[in-house]
Each structure stands twice: as C-alpha cells, then as structure tokens.
C-alpha cells in the first residue's frame, strides 16, 4: 500500500505532533501502579504524520519519515550492525546511522524493489528476502509481466556491505516459493560458513522458471516443494558460492498435538481409555497420524455388511472382524475425502513456516508454521529436527516465536488475518490474534496464557500480534512487540501465567476515513534503544523511562548489554557484565517482590554505594564481604533472586 505524502505533511512533520503522555508513575514504588485509566490509546486522532499519540513509560526519542523512493512504500523488518539500523522496505532497504538517536542519519540505501525485503546481517554480508512476483535480479522497478521469466528474483539476495555505501550483490539464491522471511543461523562449530533458513509461503514457481520446483503434493511427486524448508549455506570466504544444501522435511509424520484446552488429567484419561479400548479389541483407526477408537455405532453396520457380503447372517466372525480391521482406515479416509496415497504420504498440516527463530546457544529453534508451533533441534544446522509441536484452538496462523533468555519459556504469535485486518477491536476475542506463552521443560511445551494488546483499537487500524524481541532486563522476561497500528507494547512475562503490560506507545489511525496500512512492523531493543519500523511513517526510536514496573537501575543494567549485530529471527544469549546497576537492579526487584526486609535492602544499598566510592583492593574486599553475607542469607521468599544478587556482587568484586 502506498501513501502520497504531501510536502506539507513531510515539511511540517515534527510540528503539531500531539504527544499525550499517560499518567507516569513514580519509580521504585513497591506496588506497581495500574496502567492509566481510561486507556489513553482509545480515541486517538487519526493522521499520517499528525496523528495524536499516547505513551506510557516510554519516551519518544525521534521519528524519522522514510525518504524517497521509500516514502509511501511499506517499511518492513529491521536488522542491526554496529551503529547502523538496516530497515527493509518494499522498494529496497535504508541504512540508518543511529550514532545520534535523536537524529538518525540516512547513511545509505538501495532502491531494489521486492516484497517483503526482510533483512539480516552477518559480518560483512547483508541478506534481503524477495517473495513477490515483481522482484527482479537487476533491481529494476518495472516488475515482471511474464509468468515465466529468467529475470525474476524470488529468494535471497546477498550483498557484500564491507563498504556500506557501495553494496555489491555477490549472490542471489532462487527458491521455489520465494523468501517471505529468513533466518540467519551461525553454527558454533563451523566458523567458515553461515546458514540461512528460508521460509516461503507464497505459490510455487513454474519448473520452467526454476528447474526442480514441483507444485504437486508429495503423495503425487515426492520432490514436492511443499512440506519443507530450505537451508542455504554461505561460505564466508566465497559468498558467491551460496547455495541450497538441504530441504529438510521437518513436518513429516507430524501428529496433531493436543490442544491447550485439555487438562493433563483429561489427556491422561483419554490415553487410558485408548489403551483399554485397544486391549479389549476395539476397532482402532489411524488416520493422518491420529489414532482414534471407532465406536460400535460406526463398526456395527460395517460388520453387518461384511457378513451379508459373504452371504451369511447373524454375528460377525473373527474373520469378518479381521477384514474390517484391514480396511477401516481406507473406509474412513474415503468418507472424509482423504485418498489412500495421502494417508500413506506426509501428514497434512503445515507446508511451510512463517518464521523460524533460532537460539543457537541452547541448540533450539521455534518454528511458527501455519497451524502449529514447532520446537526444532538445530545442533546440526543443515538438518534441523522437529522435537516438539503444539497447536491451539484459538490460533489461526502461527507467525513467530521468541524464547526467554533462560530457554525455559517460548512465546508464539498468531498473525490472525495476515496483518491487514483490524483484529484488536473491542469485539475481537482476546485469545484470537494474540501471543500464546508456553513453559519449556525437557523439550516439552506447556501452554500457560495468552497476551494480547490490552487497548482496543478501531476498525480503521490493522492490528494483530507481530514481531518483537526481548529487552535485556536482568532477572526478568520482558519483551517489546509490534501490533501494527495498535502501536508497540512492552510486557513482562516472567510469570508465564500472568503476563502484564508495563509500557506502550500508540498513534491514531493513519487514515480517518478507511483502513489504511500502517503501524509498527517490528520493534526491537538494540543497545539501549527501542527501534521500530513504522510501515507508513518511517523509523521511530524510543527509550524506556523508569516506572513502578521498571526502575532506573533495571534500565541501566539492560543498557550495559551490547550487541555487535542483531537479526530479526536470531536470538543471542544475553549475558550481563558485572556492574553496580546490575546488582542494584536485583535489589530493586527484591524490593518489588518483598524478597528481603526493607532494613536489609537499605543495608545492601548502603554497602553498594560505599563500595562504589572505594577503589582497588578495598572495593573488591568490601564487595566480596557483601557477597558473602548475601550467600549466607536465609529466609528470603525470593531465594533465587538473592542468589543472582550475590553472584552479581561477587562478579563485580572480581571485575575490580
């Protein structure tokens, strides 16, 4: 979708913006103040560049509109390298220098149209996804009219950005379904190559355009381009040799997992009943990987017809039963329109993933794949293996995944309606188009709760769960997430069963008369900044401000974390360097949880301050002494946090 930006709109950009700041709460209060009421996000005035805004516990640092030729074209995903944010756009990409976040400077750009132009970086390489039918190898803007063309690019463009102002297109890897998104995966054991997983959900190309692309399903042709992902290997010394090295069929034999609504007792009960039915000779049906008991009302007429067919009468014999057992799967398959070939082939279900978020430090990936959320073992990058799957009766389309830093939780998003629909209206169920939060233990995912943007949006605003990332608040699981025109929402999911919003920013609709396309496509924390790619409005930068939910120490501790690069679907292990802010953040959290008595907290704070005023061996000894006293602390209701605090104080002592 596009917007014609008038000179007036662009010129008067920063003038006339109405910033509505929600009631800010004072920092450090033990009981968090509730979100502002009434919610200031309701009823915001519309406008492309002069919409009213609401912010809570966030400060707007800058808002930078996209320049030509990107203005009016869809801004998409974001990647980061050093001081740069690289922002994808359906017309190419923009490179922003964030050295002064109050005034990002366009350092470079490339006009090279393709949807969705999702971007990633690795070393001096930049990867850009192309999916649509009009992308061209020569970056031309004229599209591709022919149904079969040698000029069409659907797949991955690879640029050498050693000189970021002069990118060199070193390779293009064409794929059968194009690249809707992609995932960069570094193999800790392999320093010579980097891998890219391609997720492509659009139609399959003609084999005349890209040889080997098979449109038929696997039961008809085992080389089908469906039911698989693509893995591209890029030799770092010779990126021009990038090529697809495997097409893992990670969906094979996928069995419909239990829906979250079933309690563990229900599931155990069902399994018991199934075993009992099997033991008592009940007729079992196995169809598409799911085993079911055929009830008597289903089998009795079938047995009767078998008896009649052999000219007999009366009760069915053992042979009659055996005949039914041999054929019952085919009978049911015919009744529901599933052919024998399909029953014996791959299971139905996802033919592709939308996103695959890799967390190499724990060897796992979260695949958001059509009707399923998958857990993948990626210790062998070329051959990812599915090790778990979840489904959810409220989820429409599994879109993306985020692990918490410990790898003990995983959050999936549901991009119900594809991102173009207004799915956050008061009338839309809060469990639809939301996040689903699962705990992750022994590689098993267990549903805990949903989180959906808590502020209702209008029918003029496309809104649904979209991209986000962790904010490195130590000792907590905090994430910032895009909700398209619902704005951005920062929420805490430390308690997987009770996620809570702690900050937000929102604007009114881009258009007051109809639903336009706009809002935040992705928002990621990067080295102290919260950077959002606004589809229609450009690049937004925010900072967290202290509140009852988040103290200055917690924010300062987060800001000690520094990434050299960051990609949308790559999750780095967050490690906090020792700092006074880190220890004080844990103290603040112990105050919030009443994990230590107020007097003890005051004592710890005083000792930290005293140590900060010292230097050398004296500081080190003072900190070790404090650490030892915390090691010996007993009776805290939050012993885990006390242990984190003690560890951070010892680390600080050793760092001196």
């Amino acid at each position, binding site marked *: *979708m*596009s*917007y*014609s930006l008038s000179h007036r709109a662009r010129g008067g950009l920063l003038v006339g913006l109405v910033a509505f700041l929600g009631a800010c709460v004072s920092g450090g209060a033990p009981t968090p103040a509730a979100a502002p009421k009434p919610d200031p996000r309701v009823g915001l005035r519309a406008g492309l560049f002069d919409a009213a805004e609401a912010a809570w516990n966030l400060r707007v640092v800058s808002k930078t509109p996209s320049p030509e030729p990107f203005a*009016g074209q869809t801004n998409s995903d974001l990647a980061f390298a050093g001081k740069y944010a690289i922002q994808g756009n359906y017309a190419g990409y923009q490179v922003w220098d964030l050295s002064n976040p109050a005034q990002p400077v366009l350092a470079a750009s490339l006009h090279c149209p393709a*949807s969705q132009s999702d971007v990633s970086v690795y070393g001096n390489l930049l990867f850009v996804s192309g999916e*649509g*039918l*009009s992308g061209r190898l020569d970056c031309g803007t004229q*599209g591709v*009219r*022919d*149904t079969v063309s040698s000029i069409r690019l659907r797949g991955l463009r690879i640029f050498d950005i050693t000189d970021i102002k002069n990118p060199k297109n070193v390779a293009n890897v064409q794929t059968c379904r194009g690249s809707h998104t992609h995932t960069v995966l570094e193999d800790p054991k392999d320093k010579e190559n980097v891998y890219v997983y391609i997720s492509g*959900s*659009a*139609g*399959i190309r003609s084999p005349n355009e890209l040889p080997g692309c098979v*449109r*038929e*399903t696997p*039961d*008809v042709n085992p080389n089908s381009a*469906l039911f698989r992902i693509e893995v591209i290997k890029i030799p770092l010394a010779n990126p021009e040799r990038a090529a697809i090295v495997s097409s893992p069929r990670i969906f094979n034999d996928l069995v*419909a997992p239990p829906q979250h609504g079933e309690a563990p007792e229900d599931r155990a009960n069902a399994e018991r009943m199934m075993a009992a039915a099997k033991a008592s000779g009940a007729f079992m*049906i196995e*169809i*598409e990987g*799911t085993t*079911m008991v*055929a*009830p*008597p*009302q*289903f089998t*009795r*007429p079938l047995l009767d017809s078998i008896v009649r067919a052999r000219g007999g009468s009366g009760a069915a014999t053992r042979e009659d039963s055996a005949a039914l057992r041999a054929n019952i799967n085919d009978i*049911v398959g015919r009744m*529901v*329109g*599933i*052919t024998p070939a*399909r029953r014996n082939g791959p299971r*139905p279900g*996802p*033919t592709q993933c939308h996103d695959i978020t890799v967390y190499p430090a724990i060897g796992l990936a979260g695949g958001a794949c*059509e009707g399923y959320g998958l857990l993948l073992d990626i210790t062998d990058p070329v051959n990812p293996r599915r090790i778990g799957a979840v489904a959810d*009766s409220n989820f*429409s*389309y599994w879109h993306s995944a985020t692990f918490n830093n410990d790898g003990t939780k995983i959050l999936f998003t549901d991009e*119900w*309606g*594809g991102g*173009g*629909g207004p*799915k956050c209206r008061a009338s839309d169920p809060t469990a*639809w188009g939301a996040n689903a939060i699962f705990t992750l233990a022994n590689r098993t995912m267990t549903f805990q709760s949903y989180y959906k943007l808590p502020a209702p949006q209008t029918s003029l605003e496309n809104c649904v769960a979209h991209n986000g990332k962790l904010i490195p608040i130590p000792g907590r699981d905090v994430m910032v997430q895009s909700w398209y025109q619902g704005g951005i929402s920062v929420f805490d999911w430390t308690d997987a069963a009770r996620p809570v919003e702690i900050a937000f920013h929102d604007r009114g609709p881009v*258009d007051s*008369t*109809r*639903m336009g396309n706009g809002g935040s496509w992705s928002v990621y924390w990067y080295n102290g900044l919260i950077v959002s790619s606004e589809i229609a409005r450009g690049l937004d930068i925010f900072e967290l401000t202290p509140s009852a939910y988040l103290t200055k120490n917690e924010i300062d501790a987060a800001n000690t974390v520094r990434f050299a690069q960051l990609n949308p679907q790559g999750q780095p292990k967050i490690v906090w360097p020792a700092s006074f802010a880190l220890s004080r953040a844990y103290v603040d959290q112990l105050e919030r949880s009443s994990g230590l008595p107020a007097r003890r907290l005051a004592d710890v704070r005083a000792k930290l301050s005293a140590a900060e005023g010292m230097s050398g061996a004296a500081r080190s000894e003072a900190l070790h002494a404090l650490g030892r006293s915390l090691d010996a602390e007993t009776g805290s209701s939050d012993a885990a946090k006390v242990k984190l605090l003690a560890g951070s104080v010892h680390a600080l002592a050793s760092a001196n």
Partner: protein
Amino acid sequence: MRRTAYRVAVVTLLVGSMACRASGVATGPRPLPAPGAPAAPARGVGSVDATVPTGVAASDTLTGFPDTPVVLTVGPSSAAAIADAVADSIRHPYTTADVEFMSGMIGHHAQAIAMARLAPDRAGSEAIRTLAARIINAQVDEIRTMQSWLADRRQPVPPANPNGMTHEMGGMTHTMLMPGMLTPEQVAALARSRGTDFDERFLRFMIQHHRGATAMVRQLFSAPGAGEDELVFKFASDVNVDQSTEIARMEQMLVAVVLQRGLP
C-alpha cells in the same frame, strides 16, 4: 495446496470469462482518473459495522441464500486513496485477472459468511460455532479490503452476494458460482440440517468452499502479469495460507464427526 487432490463436488468454474463477465468490469487495466477527480458515487454507507444484516433466514426450505448482501459495500474512496491507487498502478499495473479475482472473491467470501451464520442455531458442537465465528470475522474484514481495492481503482464493486456473482448477459441476469461455492441445493441441505448432521455437512461444504478459494488463487497467479499489485499479491497469498491452514484443521474435525456419528 493439495493441488491434485481436490474433490470439489459441484463447481461451476469461471469459464469463458472473456465472453461472460460481470457487467461493467473492465476488460483490462484502464487509466485511472487524475488525483482529485470526483470519487465514484457511494454504493453503500461508510459505517458498515452497525448495519450488517443477519443475511440468512432460519428457514428449513431455503434454496440459496436470500439475495441480501452479507456486507454492505464500502463508502466512497477519498481523493487521497485514489491518488495512492494511481501511484500504485503506475508502479505495477493491475490486470483483468486481478480485477476478476478481487470481484469474484467477494461473492465467494459472502457465501462462506452466510454459511457460517447458519451455525449458531444449528451446530451440534461448540467447536463448529467457534470455527464459524472466526470465518465470519475474517471474511467480513476481507470483503471490505476487496471492495476498497476495487473502488480505489474505479472498478465496479460487486455486492457481497452469497449466491454468486451477478452478470448481465444477452439481456438476462445470471448468477455465477465461483469455484467451490455451494449450489442452491447444497445451501438448502445445509440449512435443513441440525446437530451433528449440520456439523458434518458444514465441514464438508466449507472444505469444498475453501478449496475453491485456493483454486482461485492458483488461477490468479497463473495469469500473465497478475499478482504484481502489492495488495493483490499479499491478499491472495494470505487467503491461500489462511484457508489452507483452516482446511487442514477442518479435515481433522471431520474425521472426529464422522466417527462419532457412526453409520446409518
């Protein structure tokens, strides 16, 4: 995307589209009026939420749905919206196939909505009612997207007629079913059903209906120059993945219903 496995029971394919087309639909891309030109007359009202009719009478002898649009058409396009569409079309001109897809899918969606609106009074299970509610929510929004796309390009905006696309041909009015759409007999059979009987029919018919939609997407993308328009590409791709995902879910539901019902 099970391309060869479709067993669409009764499908009136969109054949001979050059000879038999919706009255007034352009035979090819045509230049749009200059930005700022007066917008096309409004075909409906701007506020649609409050005025969505129930669409289907709870009649047991229903043959075909009442000829009432299930969603009213969108309001007039603003000058800005038309200007945006002009800019878009200069970049990627849309084709007849794009227009036919966006027009034909309106009636297709309208029928899915009308089918789903039968569920609250007839379904035997909560799962079917939930599925129906989600189909209504999704496809009502999508009809607005299609109507806006057409209106912005000054193309005729067909009403959301659940009985198919209405055409004028040789002085006669014809209603054409898009792929996968239910015949009046199938509609009547569905409307007569209750309980588990309804659930089974609903799933069978909706699978048929969704497969028709994915067939329409394939047909679109196999037409030269089609799908270059950014919105058409995204919309058609989304319809394809959403409905394919829903087909897989409905097939599983259908197995359970068939077993539970038993044989007559």
